[in-house]
């Protein structure tokens, strides 16, 4: 209700202010600091950076790559999301689970896995040679091929999730009514479903584009000379050459590019996308109408219709894509049991030596503990802030929440390398660099958007009358939140905490800059492992981490189920009515 009791404490505003304040200090502050650094001395370093033809060409490269990979990812992800959205129950859950499993494994490990899979003597080449399709092994690593394949692998799960989230809101009645009006399945799809899915496509493409802009782990490991990405340049400048001014200037350039893309997106899809409104951008409508032109594909595709309309065929295509998701695990898991000092696939000798080495290595154990502690703190902060922020967002006046929402989801929409550099510089100045707290605070900010979206959806899903009922029965606002709202959204809080923990646990970019001698996280060690000592240790760690996350997920699921079972228990004491 808008008009609460005149003299009551405006809890809504307080919560929201707390969350925004946190982000201002921990997220936007460092970025502002970075910008100040970059613009120091009249922006001389900025001009210098822009003046360098090398930098410019890398920037163009990066933008081109991001655009290309976004489109490719869309092509692969759309069918999967479509199937998940139009299936129910088990099929849907299975599709989603399988297509997003890669998200639970470290980015680094996934990239290294592709190095092995695409190697000259790797499984892909071996199979192609055996099938007689090629006579010489293909050169697929340290060049554009490997780079694109592994990037695709990394981006598809995210795109599938975003597409699915929007697509499942498409009322199946639309397609059905088109069929009753005489449209063949293909026509119905092109005329009705595709335009309706445009908002989903736009959201997915935006997110993936931003992520691709910030790529530097994958191109470092798998790319060739022509695949140099802008973020690599930033990382090199700051980390290896410690040229902070230039690094800040480069970050500023990347930030401007990202903001320009966001502005473009806002213009296309309507700015209320960021405000949590429904898709009402005028240009979105025209984009949908443009997509309607795709219906003319119906005519040339008509002869193929029986094939294209076969749900079975698409199921096979989707299955193949999903098998693609598992390819790295086929490599990582056996590799962790290899006995060799260097990466050798398939392993010729087997042993548990790498697991033993890690278990006995104080370096890895310390890193493990650090990662767990950092993850725990980050999850606690992210979930708490998201919960109170959701309450605040619900109770605060409209104009406040319209400003607050874009701020809260900003960390998701700005390439994390920009923030990492800023966070590193700020943290160094105030002595928080290389500390558990510093990294945890940063990770909490990065995990906040997803946690917030999850938890806010749950909070909004609670009938407001229930809280009013509680208050009418004598509960104060705080009591009502504690006894009514909190128990009702608790399952979602667990999931959000798990997600935040995993985000922090696998986070590499911030960790790379902000960890040092005293605090090293597992991703940091793995990065060094991949760059400086290439041995199966990292695959063993990856398997352990994946196992741990899976166990955590199962435990969370069990805890959730238990509380659900409690609710469904029926104990009829006296004779029932």
């Amino acid at each position, binding site marked *: *209700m*808008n*008009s*609460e*009791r*005149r*003299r*009551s404490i405006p809890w809504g505003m307080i919560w929201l202010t707390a969350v925004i304040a946190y982000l201002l200090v921990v997220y936007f502050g460092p970025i502002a600091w970075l910008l100040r650094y970059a613009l120091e001395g009249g922006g001389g370093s900025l001009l210098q950076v822009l003046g360098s033809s090398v930098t410019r060409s890398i920037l163009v490269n990066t933008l081109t790559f991001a655009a290309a990979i976004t489109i490719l990812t869309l092509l692969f992800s759309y069918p999967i999301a479509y199937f998940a959205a139009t299936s129910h129950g088990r099929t849907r859950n299975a599709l989603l689970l399988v297509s997003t499993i890669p998200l639970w494994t470290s980015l680094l490990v996934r990239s290294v896995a592709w190095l092995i899979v695409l190697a000259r003597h790797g499984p892909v080449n071996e199979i192609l040679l055996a099938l007689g399709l090629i006579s010489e092994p293909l050169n697929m690593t340290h060049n554009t091929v490997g780079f694109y394949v592994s990037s695709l692998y990394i981006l598809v799960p995210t795109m599938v999730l975003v597409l699915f989230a929007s697509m499942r809101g498409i009322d199946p009645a639309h397609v059905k009514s088109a069929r009753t009006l005489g449209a063949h399945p293909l026509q119905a799809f092109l005329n009705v479903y595709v335009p309706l899915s445009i908002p989903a496509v736009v959201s997915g493409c935006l997110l993936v584009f931003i992520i691709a802009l910030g790529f530097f782990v994958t191109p470092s490991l798998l790319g060739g000379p022509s695949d140099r990405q802008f973020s690599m340049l930033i990382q090199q400048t700051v980390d290896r050459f410690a040229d902070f001014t230039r690094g800040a200037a480069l970050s500023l350039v990347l930030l401007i590019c990202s903001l320009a893309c966001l502005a473009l997106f806002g213009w296309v899809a309507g700015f209320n996308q960021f405000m949590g409104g429904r898709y009402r951008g005028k240009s979105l409508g025209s984009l949908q109408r443009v997509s309607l032109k795709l219906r003319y594909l119906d005519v040339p595709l008509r002869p193929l219709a029986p094939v294209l309309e076969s749900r079975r065929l698409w199921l096979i295509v989707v299955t193949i894509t999903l098998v693609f998701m598992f390819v790295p695990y086929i490599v990582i898991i056996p590799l962790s049991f290899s006995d060799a000092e260097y990466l050798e696939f398939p392993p010729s000798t087997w042993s548990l030596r790498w697991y033993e080495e890690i278990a006995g290595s104080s370096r890895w154990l310390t890193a493990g503990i650090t990662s767990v502690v950092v993850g725990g703190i980050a999850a606690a902060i992210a979930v708490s802030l998201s919960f109170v922020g959701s309450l605040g967002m619900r109770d605060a006046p409209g104009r406040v929440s319209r400003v607050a929402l874009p701020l809260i989801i900003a960390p998701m929409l700005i390439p994390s390398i920009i923030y990492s550099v800023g966070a590193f510089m700020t943290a160094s100045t105030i002595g928080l660099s290389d500390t558990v707290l510093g990294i945890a605070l940063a990770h909490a900010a990065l995990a906040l958007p997803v946690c917030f979206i999850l938890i806010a959806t749950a909070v909004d899903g609670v*009938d407001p*009358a*229930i809280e*009013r*009922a*509680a*208050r*009418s*029965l*004598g*509960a*104060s606002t705080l*009591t009502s939140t504690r*006894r*009514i709202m909190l*128990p*009702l959204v608790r399952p979602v809080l667990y999931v959000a905490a798990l997600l935040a923990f995993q985000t922090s646990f696998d986070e590499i970019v911030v960790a790379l800059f902000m960890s040092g001698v005293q605090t090293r996280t597992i991703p940091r060690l793995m990065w060094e492992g991949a760059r400086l000592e290439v041995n199966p240790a990292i695959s063993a760690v990856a398997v352990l981490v994946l196992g741990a996350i899976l166990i955590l997920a199962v435990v969370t699921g069990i805890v959730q189920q238990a509380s659900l079972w409690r*609710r*469904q228990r*029926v*104990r*009829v*004491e*006296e*004779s*029932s*009515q």
Partner: protein
Amino acid sequence: MPATENRLYARRQDPSAEELIAGADRTTASRLDIVNVTKRFRGTATPAVESLNLSVESGQFLVLLGASGSGKTTTLMMVAGFVQPDDGDIQLGSRSIVNVPPESRNIGVVFQNYALFPHMTVQENVRFPLQMRRVRHQDADRRVFSILEMVGLSGMARRYPHQLSGGQQQRVALARALVFRPSILLMDEPLGALDRQLRGRMQQEIREIHREVGATTLYVTHDQDEALTMADRVAVLREGRLEQMATPQNLFDRPKNRFVASFVGECNFLSARVEGNSSAGWDVDLDGYRGHCEGSGPEPSRPATLAIRPHVLRVSDEGHPGVAGAVIDTLFVGDSEEILVRLDQGESVTIRRVTGEAATRFPPGTRVTVSWSWRNALVL
């Protein structure tokens, strides 16, 4: 009065824990006074509630009747404390409660969708308000089971809301709102989600519980049948203003204007020549049929009409005193029938009479005379 003082005062009005346990189920019912309350929502031109003056006597069952947008729910929410009036005062037992937060008003509310806590059992739901008042566990349980028995849900204590039917959930909501003996009970269209038969049963039950408990009750609905059935008094709201407040009988027999007349029950409006005023009465001439009747008269700049309920009209063969006309159609409505007659002066009327074997049939086209007792007619 400063807010803190109000709040303390409000707390002291709560029945103490001991009173809750020791006493019978009867509540300390208070009188509710809504004094000149106005509420405007941002973005709308007309106020949701405008200068509303309304009182509910202690122990009375008042129904707020109105269409959607009439301001009835807003009024209820203001009494409950979730909406703040822009102007005016609300007094409970002659104490102003406008500055008292909802949790301290000691008001029981039954919401439209019951708003039961899904994660608590029936027992825990009903016990909740007692926990807020720090009643001891065993005492609370005794009280809970007692009230569950009263609403007829003795065996359902350990069930969860989603395991109950609509009617059962309704009763839990009622029990929860009454268990702490509130000064006043508010009900926001609680029966809207139920089917007709169940609704009828529940209406009776609520009346019974009201009689037993004696709580001052403010009940909101848009269903005029429900209003007439359940209320001690009915307040008809239109666009935020109070049109008329009266007993159901008076509302039905003596509507103050055309709106109320047509909102509560059906009504025929015939144009007639009138002379007179509201205090002395009106002389009416309708196509030669003359008589004298009461009525508050037409609203300014509106033509005068004669308002007659369908069941008041009599239809007989041609030639009798009355207004001449021809039957258009007869509709069979179960226990009664409706006869549509077009009068010679051009307007149509609906006559309702109980079906009986002795009643004369009037097939369509028959020429008839329509008459009535002038005592039961009104000029509006």
